[in-house]
Structure formats: C-alpha cells, structure tokens
C-alpha cells in the first residue's frame, strides 16, 4: 500500500458566483506521474493553484505526507516541497536565468557568496538532469522549450518533491514535447511526484500511470491509466460520447483565388516578422499554417485581413491586386470583396466582450439591411436573426441579450464564426479557431470549417495545435522565424516531420 504524498479533501473554491471547484477529493501517490484531465474551465488550474498556495480554498483540507498543512501563500507550498510550472511562465523576461531562479530565495541581502553558491548548485542540477541551460542567458533570448526548463529547474532548486505542470505542451513542438517527457520520466525515476494538468488525451495515455478527470468544477473519476482508453476519458470529460476524428470528403479543388506574393510585414516594434512569404489557396481547399507561436503567423494573418500594413510584396484576390505597401484595403472593404476573418485573439479582436451577444452577432453588418434602416438599428430584426443563428450554431445559453463575456470560450467562438460564415465568404482566414474551446465545441467548429471548404471557400487556417492542422488541412505550410520553411500535401505527413520544420532544424 503506497501512502499518498498529497491528499485533498472536500476542496471548494468560488470566484464570485462561479464555483470553480466543488467538493474535490484527490489522492496523489508518491513517485507517480498523475494526470488531471478536463476541458478548459473544468477547474483543473484553479485546483492546482490552490495546492500551490496561489489561491486559498473556501473550505477543505490539504495534507502532505499525511500531515495537514495550511497554505496561505506560494511560499508555504514551496517550503512544503510543492513546485508548479504554470501555463504562462512565471519568468521575468529581461532577467537572466539565474536571477529568475533565485528570486525570492536569494538568501542574502547584498549579493555575494550565496549568489556564487547558488550558481554552483544550479550548474550541478543542470548536469544531473542534462538541462543544458546557460544560467547567464536572458530569458527573452530563450526559446519556449528552454523557458520551460528554466521553470522546472527553478522548482527543483527550491526543493520541489511534487512538481505540478499546467498544460506544459501547449506551446511546444513535438520534439520539445519528447524532450520534456524524457525529463519528467527521469524526475519520476528520481522519486519525484509529477502532476500533469492537460486537456490532451494522448499525453495522459503516453505519460501517466494514474488519471483523474474533472468536469465543470467537479472530480468525476479516478482510474489507473492502463485500465482506460482515450474514448472513455473523452466521454468522462465531456459527459457524452465524442467523435475524436474529423470526417472529411475528398478535396474538390477549384481555381486559385487567393495569392500572396513576396509578402513582408513588420510588427509594432518595427521588427520584420513576416519575411518574403509566397502562398496560394484554391477554392475548396484548406491551407494549414503550422508553427510555434510567435513565428509570424499572427502578423501574416493581420496583414492579410487588412489590419496590419504590408511592408513589401502584394496580396491578390481573384487575380486583382488588393494590397501592397502603398495601398491597402481596410477590413471592411475586404469583407465586401468576400474575405472573412476569424481572428486568433478572440477577446481582443473578435468580439467586444462587454456587448450583448446579439450586438456581436451583427457587428460589422450592423449598418446594412435588414439590421438597420437609415442609421437606426432594427432591434426586432436583429433579435429574430440572433435567435435563429444562435440555435443554428448551438450557442449556449441561447440568450441574445446576455453579455458576451459571460459565454464560455467555445460559445464566444461560435458567435464569431456564425457572424463571419453567414455571409458565405470566398476566402476565410482563421487563426487558432479552437484555442480555449471545449472538445464538444471543437468538433462543431471543425465541422463548420469543413462545410465551408466543401462549399468552395478558400480557407487559410493558422493553428499551433498540430493535431488540428493535420486533421483539417489539405495542404500544410510551416512557418519559422517569419519564413515558410516547408510545404507538404497532407498525405502521410507525420507530426514529427512537421515538428522538425517548426523547430527550424530541417
């Protein structure tokens, strides 16, 4: 009988009216890799933030090695041997690795001996785990994979026995994921306990020995990983059976309707983020852009949708030049020409979160009939339309008067999608369509995109989820450092091949 290193009993936590955790019970055994799976918003991160002392539970108890402890701040947790690698790294970007790691645990008022000692200790730790980190490097110069290692090193240096990782693979290439898993397995062999929070079923199956499933703030099941399957876990997560594969018909490719020639784009800091990009999309085709976040996909989509200035090169729609460095059409004019855009940052660009759902549903078309007449909104028409479209897109709850920010991520995305798709665009630019969206909604959104393709739209899909790119695209290009580093027909391509391109090594 193994005794649990961490035991949670009846944990409750609410934020305002929302109960994020309801009567959670959880036992984690020493020396295991324990997975916690659930959809976005299921309460996994909240629960682990409570264990890390960042949030305080409203009720319930936490025991470490059988001893009840009171966690008032992360310091208490760290002292008790808990480390956490957050989804958004908790690093100061303009500090060095060393400065980030000793922060809060300097051990001396004026830097001197202890700093030197810390450096030696860290170098030893790096060697033990084969981390290959330069302690004097500045964080902003490091790749995401290395930043994550810094986070792990930070926890280890602070004496973590239990290491919690919150969605650690979201921003990594497949190769980096392999590296990470290797590190986690070797940590387990050292006797450390790993808690892996994820919504990716495959990671649970690959790595963990035990798994707990959360749904809507509740713990709905615990099982040994060997006794379960992906399908079974998905059903537990969503509460109904889910189709994990996308059904896609054979491609019926039409003529080229969207063309990008030698496009370069700069970001707000005047750094060239898109470098000499050429691409073509045909009617009835989905072109996927794979790549690690921050390799120019964002700027590319912004330039194509008319939000960002073109530095050089041109964009053609139906053989007509619509944008180059001198003239460009704004998003509204592009919309009139049949180009729609589902922006990757839903909260910032896709929606006005403080508006009601029905306002967001027609925004951009609000000055057209039938939604308005002579500059006056026709509320009756808008409400009718909203009711209809929200039903069609299965937006829940189906209440057009609800403030948009009160909808879940998936339902917000459906609102945007319905608005952009309803005009039957010829070209559709989509960025991260399922970021922060629950599995049920993912299935729906994917199906809608496929429908659009079958209706003859040319679709450009940028996503950091490689699975998404692989299951939807007809053709895949890979972006690295602003350039297109590879193009493949989506036949027999593996995620490993793409991963090498994404990392810029192939």
């Amino acid at each position, binding site marked *: 009988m193994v005794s649990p290193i961490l035991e949670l009993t009846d944990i409750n936590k609410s*934020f305002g009216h929302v109960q994020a955790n309801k009567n959670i019970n959880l036992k984690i055994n020493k020396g295991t890799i324990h997975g916690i799976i659930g959809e976005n918003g299921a309460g996994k991160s909240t629960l682990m933030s409570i264990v*890390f*002392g*960042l*949030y305080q539970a409203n009720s319930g108890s936490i025991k470490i090695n059988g001893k009840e402890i009171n966690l008032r*701040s*992360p*310091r*208490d*947790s*760290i002292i008790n041997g808990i480390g*956490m690698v*957050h989804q*958004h790294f*908790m*690093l*100061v*970007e*303009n*500090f060095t690795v060393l*400065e*980030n790691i*000793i*922060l*809060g*645990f*300097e051990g*001396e*008022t*004026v*830097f001197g001996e202890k700093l030197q000692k810390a450096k030696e200790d860290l170098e030893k730790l790096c060697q033990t785990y084969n981390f290959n980190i330069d302690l004097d490097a500045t964080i902003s110069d490091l790749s995401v994979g290395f930043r994550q290692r810094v986070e792990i090193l930070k926890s280890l240096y602070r004496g973590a026995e239990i290491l919690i990782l919150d969605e650690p693979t979201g921003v990594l290439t497949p190769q980096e994921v392999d590296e990470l898993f290797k590190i986690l397995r070797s940590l387990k062999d050292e006797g450390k306990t790993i808690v892996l929070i994820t919504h990716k079923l495959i990671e649970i199956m690959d790595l963990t020995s035990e798994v707990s499933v959360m749904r809507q703030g509740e713990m709905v099941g615990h099982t040994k990983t060997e006794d379960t399957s992906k399908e079974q876990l998905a059903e537990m997560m969503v509460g109904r059976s889910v189709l994990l594969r996308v059904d896609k018909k054979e491609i019926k490719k039409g003529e080229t309707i969207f063309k990008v020639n030698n496009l370069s784009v700069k970001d707000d*800091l005047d750094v060239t983020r898109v470098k000499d990009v050429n691409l073509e999309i045909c009617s009835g085709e989905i072109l996927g852009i794979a790549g690690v976040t921050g390799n120019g996909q964002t700027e590319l989509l912004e330039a194509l949708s008319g939000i960002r200035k073109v530095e050089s090169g041109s964009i053609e729609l139906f053989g007509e030049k619509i944008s180059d460095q001198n003239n460009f059409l704004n998003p509204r004019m592009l919309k009139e020409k049949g180009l729609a855009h589902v922006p990757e940052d839903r909260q910032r660009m896709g929606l006005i979160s403080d508006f009601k759902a029905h306002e967001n549903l027609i925004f951009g078309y609000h000055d057209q009939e039938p939604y308005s007449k002579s500059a006056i909104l026709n509320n009756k028409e808008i409400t009718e339309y909203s009711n209809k479209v929200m039903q069609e897109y299965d937006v829940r709850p189906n209440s057009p008067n609800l403030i948009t920010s009160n909808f879940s991520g998936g339902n917000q995305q459906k609102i945007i999608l319905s608005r952009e798709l309803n005009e039957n665009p010829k070209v559709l630019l989509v960025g991260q369509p399922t970021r922060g969206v629950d599995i049920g909604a993912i299935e729906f959104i994917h199906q809608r995109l496929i429908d659009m393709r079958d209706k003859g739209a040319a679709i450009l899909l940028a996503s950091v989820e490689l699975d998404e790119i692989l299951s939807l695209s007809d053709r895949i290009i890979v972006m690295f450092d602003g350039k297109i580093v590879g193009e493949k027909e989506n036949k027999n391509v593996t995620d490993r091949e793409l991963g090498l391109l994404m990392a810029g090594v192939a």
Partner: protein
Amino acid sequence: MEFLSDIASLINSTLRISTPLVFAAMAGIFAERSGVIDFSLEGKMLMAAFVAAVGSYYLGNPWLGLLLAIIICVCLSMLHGFASVTHKGDQVVSCVAINILIIGLTTALAAAWFGQAGLTPTLNEDQRFLEIHLPFADALRDIPVIGTLYSDILSGHYVFVYLAYLSVPLVFWIVFKTSFGLRLRAVGENPSAVDTAGINVFTMRYKALAINGVLIAFAGAHLSTAVNANFFREMSAGRGYLALAAMIFGKWHPKTALIACLLFGFTDALQIRLQGVELPAIGEIPVQLIQALPYILTVVLLAGFVGKAIAPNAIGQPYIKER
C-alpha cells in the same frame, strides 16, 4: 579668465538646479520600477516644500522640518498606494488627485496659518540650511583649474546638493546589487513571477513607495529651506514632471536619469545666464523663449530621442491575482 569663471558658475548652478530633479527622479525610479506610475512627484515635492518650511519655522530647526516633510511625503505615497495598489484604482488618476489636492491645500493652509495665501514666513538663518564651504576653499581658490574646480564648483553648496549626487550610486547599488532590488525590478516586470516566488506583491510595492516618499521629501525641503527661505505658491514649478521626464529619458536607470537631470539643469542654468544677453547676429532673445527652453527640450527629447525607452512591463497595471 572671465570665460573660465563663467563656465565655473554655470556648472555650479547646474549642480544646484538639478538637485531637486535628481531626488525626484530617484524617487520615481523606485515607484515605477515596482510597477506604480508616479505623476504625483510634483505634488509631493510641493507638499514637502511647504511642510519643511512650516516645520522649521515652528520648530526652529531645518532638520526637523525635513523630518516632518519625510513623514508627510511617505503618508502621501501610502495614500497613492492605498488607492492604486490595494484598491487597484487608476494610477494616473490617483496621482492627479494628489497633485490637485496639494496645490489647493498648501495655499489654503498658508492662508489659514499665516494670513497670506500660499506664502510662509521667511526663515532666519537658524531655521534654514546654509551653504557648506568645504575646508580650504578660500585658500585654494587661486590655484589654476584645480582651485576653480574645488572652490567654485565643488564648494559652497547646500547639503542637499551633496546628498542628491550621493543618492545616485546608492540607488544604483540598491536596485542592482541587492535582493531587495531584484525583487523590486521583478515586481514591476512580472508581478505574477514575484507572487509565485512567495513574495507579497503588495508589500513590495508599498515598500518601494515608502522609499519614494523619503526621497521626494528631500527635493521639496531643498526648495523651501535651502535655496529659498520660505514656501511660495506652486514653487515646485513643474520640476516633478521634469524629473519624471528625465527618469523616462534615462530609461528608469539611475545613472542615465542623472545625466538627463543634469541636462535639464544645465539648460535651466543656461537660460538664466542667457537672459538679457545679446547674441551676435541674433540680438537679444526674448526672455519667454529662453525660459521655455528646458520644457521644449523635454518635449523634443521625449518625442524624438528616447525612441525605445522600454518601461517596466507591468507599469500602471494593478496586480490582480484571481481572475
């Protein structure tokens, strides 16, 4: 030789005029490095000037006046912290409120206590700081260059001038060589990282603001109990804003901020010298134009030359843990 003594007196006044700017810029560095915008340097400087003048008038000792000014300025910083750190209010609004409050308060209190709106009684020699003459200043004056440097530039300043320039290496040392400094910079860049390292973000910001209050008090006391012998209405005259500009121009770094302060001080010293002077070919420059020089310079520098002054990442954002 006259040219040399002109230069010497120009440098001398540059050092003196820059003093309140240096204190204020150093104060600003603490607040802003911790992530709290501090436009209220202006108001706090004015309040410090008022409190120092009143304090030394009643207590008969300028050091006690200074102490009182420090206490009041720290209180004002805490007020700013209470509004913008604890209650997550808009930091700029909180600063503007403090500035407006103090302009009115100093004027009104002076009227109530001394019968003159915005004016405090003149301090006698015991109640104010006097110029410090370094030893042998007079004896060494006639030695060429070194004598001028020692006697006319280094000697004969108020205590605040020396303290201001000593504060710069001290601030540098605290910010970059101590664990407090590391935490201070971290909390202004990424408060979440500080929180997850087990350090209280709010406490850190309050500590930074407390130091900010202490430093800015020196700037105010310099104005009313050293270079002047009383407080008068709005005597800070935009120096708080100028210091803030210098700090931004200096990229939130003590050394470069010092250089920026000296630059502003120099243009101010220059404009005083240039008033009424006929320049060859141009003739006499209108005094208003000359007086506007430091401010024009500020605008030009901030608009044109600073370019990529990258502010602490989390500046102006209240820390919200639970979302």
